[in-house]
């Protein structure tokens, strides 16, 4: 049993504070959903957890089983058991999944064999394994390939950054089922970042956190997702007696065409 713990995490880009005191705790085998409107800082949280150097952490802590990850370079965080599925996986010409997995494990894993097994579970066709990673992949192929890497590398915790964006129904179901199976097979703990409740019909969360203005404003069970579905962020904010904060982070990339504006 492992615990990923985020305590009072603050982070900025330049002078702009994006994360304003994030607290979260995810245990092995659990699925936590982190839901928030565009610009609330959700994606920033995923990259700050992974250690992207565009952000400055000003205070707080991120631990796995008490071991501090802040201050470690990205690759070491990954080797401590943290995995990020990227919202926009970048194309890398000439680098196949097998090359990536071999390098990520210093050649220790039976990369070819494990990739073949996962490819059949996730319906990833061979042509996507022989090509450079993400090169000319559709949205669905990208997320299947992200999930394949997740399954092969077997981390302790996975942060899913809008894994539901750009996915068709079949791919969403395949990806969700595989991740859910990992929570049972390997005890994977999941932090699923989304602004779209559709994911949560496939990937059933144990806890739902609502993220606004760079922090978690309320947490609850799956019923919280239902409340958001019915009343939107405005309705929830009214119940909590807070204002929906103006965006702290501009959406960096084009919005998800599947997303309903305002949720």
């Amino acid at each position, binding site marked *: 049993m492992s615990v990923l713990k985020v305590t009072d995490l603050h982070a900025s880009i330049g002078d702009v504070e994006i994360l304003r005191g994030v607290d979260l705790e995810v245990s092995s085998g659990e699925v936590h959903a982190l839901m928030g409107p565009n610009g609330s800082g959700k994606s920033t949280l995923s990259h700050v957890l992974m250690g992207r150097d565009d952000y400055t952490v000003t205070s707080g802590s991120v631990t796995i089983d008490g071991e501090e990850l802040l201050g470690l370079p*990205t*690759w070491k965080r990954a080797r401590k058991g943290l*995995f990020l599925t990227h919202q926009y996986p970048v194309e*890398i010409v000439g680098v196949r999944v097998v*090359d990536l997995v071999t*390098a990520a494990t210093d050649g220790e894993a039976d990369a070819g064999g494990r990739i073949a097994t996962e490819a059949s579970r996730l319906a990833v066709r061979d042509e996507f394994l022989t090509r*450079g990673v993400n090169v000319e992949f559709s949205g669905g192929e990208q997320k299947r390939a992200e999930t394949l890497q997740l399954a092969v590398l077997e981390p302790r915790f996975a942060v899913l950054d809008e894994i539901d964006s750009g996915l068709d129904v079949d791919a969403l179901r395949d990806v969700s089922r595989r991740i859910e199976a990992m929570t049972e097979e390997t005890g994977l703990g999941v932090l699923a970042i989304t602004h779209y409740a559709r994911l949560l019909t496939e990937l059933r969360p144990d806890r739902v956190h609502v993220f606004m203005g760079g922090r978690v404003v309320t947490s609850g069970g799956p019923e919280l997702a239902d409340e958001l579905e019915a009343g939107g962020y405005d309705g929830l904010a009214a119940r909590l007696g807070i204002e929906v904060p103006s965006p702290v982070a501009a959406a960096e990339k084009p919005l998800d065409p599947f997303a309903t504006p305002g949720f």
Partner: protein
Amino acid sequence: MTDHSFTPLAAGALGGPDWLVARRAVAAEQLAELVWPTDSEEVWRYSRVNQFDLAQYRPMTAEELGAPDVESAPGGGPLAAELGERAALIVVRDGRVVHHELDDELIEQGVTVCGIATCEADAVEPFLGTVSSASPDAFTVLHDAFLAGGAFVRVPRGVVVERPIVVLHWAEGEGMASFPHTLVVADEGSEVTIVERHASAPHVNHLVDSVVELAIADNAHVRHVSIQEYGDHTWSVALQRAHLGRDARLSSSAVALGGDYARLRTESRLDGAGAESDLLAVYFGDGNQMHDFRTFQDHVAPRTRSDLLFKGAVEDTARSVYSGLIRIRPDAQKVEATQSNRNLVLTEGAGAESIPNLEIEADDVRCSHASTVGPIDDDQRYYLESRGVRPEDAERLIVLGFFEDVFSRLPVPALATPLRRAVHEKVGHLHGDAS
């Protein structure tokens, strides 16, 4: 007393067959008036030609080269072994053939593999210089004045040589200059693959002034691979030029890894309708190296096609230059030509110049050019590192991946492994890692 400078007397003293001595004499006559280029000339812009001083070198004497018919070196070495089966092997030291061998079966089919100075004169003389003389500069004049031998390959009409013909060039000798030459004549409808490796002794100041001529007749197909792994103090100026007949085809790949300053002119003239030329290159400079490429896709005839893809990387304080021209002559209608140069700059002290050019005199053509110079993409690096890939491995993967589309298209697939290894070592060196 031997004259150690580049004079007509020194050129004459090199010996060899009368026709070759006479040919050298014609070029040597021009030496006294030869004007050495400077980097103010467009074709030498960004080059290191201003640092060139011929007086730092001297030509080899006939004694140093050895008699043309004495073949002292059993050739090969590790690269020849790695290539696997071959049809023929020619070993050239300091520009003179010191070993050659050819499969009996190909001898029976009339294939010729020999040294330029030792072949039957009638076999070589009519072809020597027919391609290179169309693109002279000061270095080709010097080359012709001291050309004492080199590799000659001729494939007769309709003959298909399945396995590669390997030519290994080696240069050594502090303060000396050598003038390797390779002449390939592919007769009508023939097919041949030539793999050349150019190497020289490390830490030795040496000038290599080399020429490769590819005469490709109608319907013939030549695949040419050139791997340049000169020592770190070698100055190299090379011309590789092809003339293509009707429906002829050239698939050329150049790999440049070595040298101090190494310049290669890669030129392809499409004389016959329907001819096709594919020019690929990979180059990777480190330390204070400079790789300097000038390319010319010269479309003379209609319905010709040419593609060019040159990919390079520089690290430390290395520099590279790519300057390329596609020229479509007035009669060359229905031509397709592309030119693409991509550069990775791996360290702040390194730099790459990229200058693509088009000169189009026909109206019904499809041409494109593209060039990029930049560092490794941070998003790619971050993506790999987020999987647990060490930063130095991420960089290696990205650089190897960048070159992979050229390596995977090499006409001799067995070469890809040693070349990937060579690139791997160059990237590794950046991180001070000995492996």
